[in-house]
């Protein structure tokens, strides 16, 4: 079964690749007409520099996430956990090139998905595509967006940490990206996508990245089941220092994530950069103080988790809000996410590394906060939120949040059900006791 599946996937990928190579299409007549009508867009070197640097920054977030998660598991699972994030760089990159970018950003079909015109990056060249970014090469936009597709499914892995089978995970990556990430990215950011048309705002991926992964994490935590010994054995983080290094890399990379989402250098990128930092600082403080008051000690893990919660919360709003709004978004984000992770044990599911509490809840708060704090004074292309006299944006935000929640939850359940019936989701009992590092990868994270 396993072999059959992998062969099937390989054949699928190769046939797609050959599609792409077969047609090094000459410029189509319609493109010539367009070019004649509008002044040809030119590449701006400053914008291009910033987007390429931002792409590299966002790339670094995935290894950062690997360390963030890796420190929180027990030492026998450190490599298995790191590997689940790291290998997303491999799988998602290839998917993105073969058909992911085309499904996400390619010419629209029925407001729900892109078509296959850009399969194999056919037609995605070095000329700008004014639909998305008029001053940078189309490939710069493509590679920037690729890094988002890489990190998003990796975020989910925290929900089923320490027990998921690696071979199944690879297929999960392919299915989840194909049926959840690519459609969602199209709905929200693709030209013709229905959420984009609705007028809901998501600057850097509150919906596409954080709600999608956070809600899928909830479905996964429930469906995959608890770790052996959960609630009975101690499952303390084995290396909080590693987790803090990871959180710091996430914070650093996030400047590209949000700042780069301006898809140009200049004032909007600066504004997004600034509010990203402010909200993160505020949330690190508010989580720390909330925990200090509630539990008596300000923990390093709490400060790091608060920072990530702040980064998540500001993400959808980062291109639309000013500095003081970002302070509030961060402060509230830290406290809400801290409360959410404390509720987890009451619900009884084992979302091992709190993906739901941080990304699902933080992303939802961020999307709602965008409907409250957005201001045209910050970004004329955006809209005013409730606090700036426009209640309709909040309604649109709520509709988009609801759609992302329902879609991500249901489709993730279907994918997991399918994988459970074919490949099996969890490692066997012995392997779970021995740890993923030894059982799945034949390695040890630490020699001493």
């Amino acid at each position: 079964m396993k072999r059959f599946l992998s062969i099937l996937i390989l054949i699928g990928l190769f046939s797609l690749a050959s599609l792409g190579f077969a047609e090094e299409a000459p410029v189509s007549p319609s493109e010539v007409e367009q070019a004649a009508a509008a002044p040809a867009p030119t590449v701006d070197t400053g914008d291009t520099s910033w987007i390429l640097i931002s792409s590299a920054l966002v790339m670094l977030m995935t290894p950062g996430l690997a360390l963030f998660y890796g420190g929180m598991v027990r030492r026998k699972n450190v490599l298995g956990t790191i590997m689940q994030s790291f290998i997303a760089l491999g799988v998602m990159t290839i998917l993105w090139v073969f058909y992911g970018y085309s499904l996400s950003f390619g010419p629209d079909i029925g407001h729900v998905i892109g078509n296959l015109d850009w399969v194999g990056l056919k037609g995605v060249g070095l000329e700008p595509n004014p639909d998305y970014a008029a001053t940078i090469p189309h490939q710069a936009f493509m590679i920037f967006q690729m890094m988002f597709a890489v990190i998003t499914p990796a975020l989910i892995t925290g929900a089923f940490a320490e027990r998921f089978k690696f071979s199944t995970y690879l297929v999960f990556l392919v299915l989840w990206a194909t049926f959840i990430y690519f459609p969602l990215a199209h709905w929200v950011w693709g030209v013709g996508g229905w959420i984009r048309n609705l007028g809901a705002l998501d600057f850097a991926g509150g919906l596409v990245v954080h709600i999608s992964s956070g809600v899928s994490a909830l479905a996964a935590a429930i469906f995959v089941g608890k770790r052996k010994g959960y609630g009975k054995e101690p499952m303390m983080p084995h290396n909080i220092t590693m987790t803090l290094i990871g959180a710091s890399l996430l914070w650093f990379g996030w400047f590209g994530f949000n700042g780069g989402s301006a898809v140009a250098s200049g004032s909007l990128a600066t504004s997004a950069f600034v509010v990203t930092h402010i909200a993160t600082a505020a949330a690190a403080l508010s989580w720390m103080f909330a925990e200090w008051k509630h539990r008596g000690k300000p923990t390093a893990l709490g400060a790091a988790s608060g920072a990530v919660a702040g980064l998540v919360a500001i993400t959808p709003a980062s291109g639309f809000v000013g500095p003081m709004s970002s302070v509030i978004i961060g402060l509230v984000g830290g406290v809400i996410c801290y409360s959410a992770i404390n509720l987890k044990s009451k619900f009884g599911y084992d979302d091992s590394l709190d993906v739901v509490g941080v990304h699902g809840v933080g992303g939802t708060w961020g999307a709602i906060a965008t409907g409250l704090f957005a201001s045209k004074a910050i970004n004329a292309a955006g809209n005013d939120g409730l606090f700036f006299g426009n209640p309709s944006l909040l309604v649109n935000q709520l509709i988009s949040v609801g759609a992302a929640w329902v879609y991500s939850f249901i489709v993730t359940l279907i994918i997991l059900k399918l994988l459970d019936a074919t490949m099996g989701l969890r490692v066997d009992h012995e392997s779970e006791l021995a740890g993923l590092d030894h059982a799945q990868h034949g390695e040890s994270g630490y020699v001493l």
Partner: protein
Amino acid sequence: MKKIEAIIKHYKLDEVRDALNKIGIQGMTVTEVKGFGRQKGHMEVYRGVEYEVKFLPKVKIEVAVPAERLEDIIKVIQDNARTGEIGDGKIFVSNLEDVIRVRTGERGKDAI
């Protein structure tokens, strides 16, 4: 000859070592250990989940001594390892059959 095994707090190790050095003790073995006594463990909280840490880290020093010096040495260890708080540790004393210096083959007291 006697063997002393003392379980003490980490941060008392240097004081004990220096004090033993001063009264002419020329060697010891140190091991990082975990355990519990009356102090029991403590609670740690990670993201709202409480874990009981049942074994606390301590340091074990082992010293081989001539029987006639035993009481002096016990006193030095006790004086220097003591804080007065619960969790200061314990000193175990046992008989030691023989000691052999690997390089020369000396035995007994001469090898200590």
